[in-house]
């Protein structure tokens, strides 16, 4: 189990430390989110390669309404 | 160049400028934001009937944009050497005019004499490029002038942008260059030989000056050479084109008119006083924030009538001979002098001219801005 910060709040991750697992855990559709890991934008291919570590800060963002 | 580029070609508006009806003129006067169409209508003969109204509106707009100030400057001819062959000019290479140029010491003396009567804004002039008066000479003179005059502009041969930059580095702030006429065929006829025969090179010179870091350009066409409506509409387009691209630059307009000259060149399209006044007022209406300039080529009566009414910048106490300021008191000035480029009509000294302006509730301004805190041209971000 990994303790991460996701969207500014503590999150216990119980998966295999991949982005895909984290998103599944959150209930987020991978095709509908943008991700930052420790302040860095995670582009498509990088997502698969990444292994999350304890203390990582993840931002998961979607498009919402705005002017 | 035989055909004008589309951005410059005034042909679409030429017919209106020749044949506008009284109704079209009234409509042009009614507009709150007059543009090219309105300029064309106001250039047409039918607009002569509305001269007083044009004058009133020009007065109002001049006052709104420039207050009651009239900016004053004076020309200093550095040299009358010229390689050119302009049919209409007293300095053409085949004229038997004695040639001379001011050496640096003489330039200093002339400038000191000009400062003595209040001049702080000088326009340095030469003819077409010659060995005697080329870029090096000019750059040196600009440097000398910039040391004693807050504003130094030049009216000289066209040059590449890099050369304009050299002048800018020496302290030059502006370039005046008249296309003479925007009609390529007539232009070719008037410019018999030499580099000035290149219409396109001259047309592009103001843009090169701005690219070289100069901040102001003055445009104009020599009224009388060609159809005034054609040249004035093209002049409008030329200004608009430059302002669109060089949005930080100041662009001003002059209205030189062919005047009597030793050698007897006669204008084929003479512009009388009423027409010249109307041209200037039409430009004031259509380009309310553009400085409009009138020189001492024009008579005292005409200048008095136009000062502050459309015109907000004027030359004063001019000599159109080489030098001519540093002379003994009481010596005659250049009227009728064969060595002058053109005859000065208004020979009033600065004090008299300023007295006239004040009598008309106008304020003569010799200096517009100080360059004390400005960076050298190269240091500022290029525009």
């Amino acid at each position, binding site marked *: 189990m990994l303790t991460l910060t996701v*969207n*500014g709040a503590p999150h216990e991750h119980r998966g295999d430390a991949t982005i895909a697992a984290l998103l599944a855990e*959150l*209930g*987020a*559709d991978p*095709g*509908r*989110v*943008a991700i*930052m890991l420790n302040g860095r*934008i995670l*582009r*498509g291919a990088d997502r698969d390669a990444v292994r999350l570590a304890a203390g990582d800060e993840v*931002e*998961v*963002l*979607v*498009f*919402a*309404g*705005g*002017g | 160049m035989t055909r004008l580029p589309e951005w410059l070609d005034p042909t679409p508006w030429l017919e209106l400028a020749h044949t506008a009806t009284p109704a079209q003129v009234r*409509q042009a*006067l*009614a*507009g*709150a*934001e*007059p543009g090219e169409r*309105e300029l064309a209508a106001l250039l047409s003969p039918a607009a*002569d009937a509305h*001269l*007083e109204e044009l*004058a*009133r*509106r020009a*007065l*109002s*707009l001049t*006052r709104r944009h420039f207050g009651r100030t009239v900016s004053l400057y004076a020309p200093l001819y550095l040299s009358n050497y010229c390689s050119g062959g302009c049919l209409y000019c007293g300095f053409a290479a085949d004229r038997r005019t004695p040639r001379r140029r001011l050496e640096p010491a003489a330039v200093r003396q002339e400038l000191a004499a000009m400062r003595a009567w209040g001049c702080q804004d000088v326009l340095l002039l030469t003819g077409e490029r010659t060995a005697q008066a080329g870029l090096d000479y000019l750059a040196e003179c600009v440097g000398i002038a910039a040391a004693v005059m807050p504003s130094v502009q030049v009216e000289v041969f066209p040059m590449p942008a890099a050369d304009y930059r050299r002048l800018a580095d020496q302290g030059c702030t502006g370039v005046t260059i008249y296309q003479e006429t925007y009609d390529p065929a007539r232009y070719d006829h008037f410019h018999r030989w030499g580099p000035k025969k290149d219409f396109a090179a001259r047309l592009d010179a103001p843009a090169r000056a701005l690219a070289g870091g100069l901040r102001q350009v003055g445009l104009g066409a020599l009224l009388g050479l060609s159809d005034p409506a054609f040249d004035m509409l093209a002049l409008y387009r030329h200004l608009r084109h430059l302002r*669109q691209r060089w*949005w930080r630059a100041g662009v001003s307009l002059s209205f030189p008119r062919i005047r009597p000259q030793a050698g007897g060149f006669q204008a084929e399209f003479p512009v009388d*006083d*009423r027409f010249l*006044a109307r041209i200037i007022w039409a430009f004031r209406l259509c380009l309310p924030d553009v400085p409009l300039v009138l020189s001492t080529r024009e008579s005292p*009566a*005409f200048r*008095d*009538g136009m000062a502050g*009414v459309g015109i907000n910048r004027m030359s004063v106490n001019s000599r159109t001979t080489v030098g001519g300021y540093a002379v003994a008191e009481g010596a005659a000035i250049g009227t009728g002098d064969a060595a002058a480029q053109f005859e000065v009509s208004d020979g009033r000294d600065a004090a008299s001219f300023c007295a006239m302006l004040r009598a008309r509730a106008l304020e003569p301004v010799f200096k517009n801005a100080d360059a004390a805190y400005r960076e050298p041209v190269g240091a500022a971000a290029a525009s």
Partner: protein
Amino acid sequence: MAAIPANAPLPADPFRLGDVELPSRLILGTGKFSGVEAMLAAIQASGTGLVTVALRRFSRGPGAADDLLGPLATLPNVRLMPNTSGAMNAREAVRAAQLARELSGSRFVKVEIHPNPHHLLPDPLETYAAAAELAKDGFLVLPYIPADPVLARRLEDVGCAAVMPLGAPIGSGGGLTTRDMVRIMVRECSIPVIVDAGLRAPSEAALALELGCAAVLVNSAIAAADEPARMAQAFALGVQAGRLARRAGLMPQGAVGHAVATSPLTSFLGGTA
């Protein structure tokens, strides 16, 4: 009903941002709608080809921001223009834009940096810095700015695809309070000028187009209307009317009063005046 469909483009009057041609001069914001259904209905009624979206943190449960990517994907002719709202400075705006591009694949970005949460007025300095960097990075940058003609020219010079001066503060419904400045901007800029924020009524949108603006961006006026879809249609018609009028050439406006000289100004000229 009019013979011309509300969302039909004028003949030979293409509206382009960069190299992208858009079918409508009305751009829609997607905020403040009562729900996704209302938003989609308004977008379709407007005929727009471009809508703005904001980046928000994903979350589940009450108060969660609705993901719009899915719903908007059902409108294949509508492109996305992510905005950078929430960013307080250029660095954050650039990061938001890059994140958004990852997600949307769209080259459009509305640079929106308003550090004061009360009046939401844009920060011109941060906006310029962000716009310059994003334009270099290949974005089609539409900066949201005060109606400042000099700032607009500077943004044009650094490669923005358009400039978006505010009509009035966001959400204020103040109308086209900046019309005099916008007029100058239209004259001075070669890139499209798009009024964004503060428009309340279709007549104001028409006015913006009559003044020479290339398009308008409308959000609150539509989302907060009683019937957003109908209001969207009304705005589309207003934009079309304004553009058509501009193309048709409005008659000259009357000149403002001028000073009257007490004595004739032309007596020095001779002849009859």
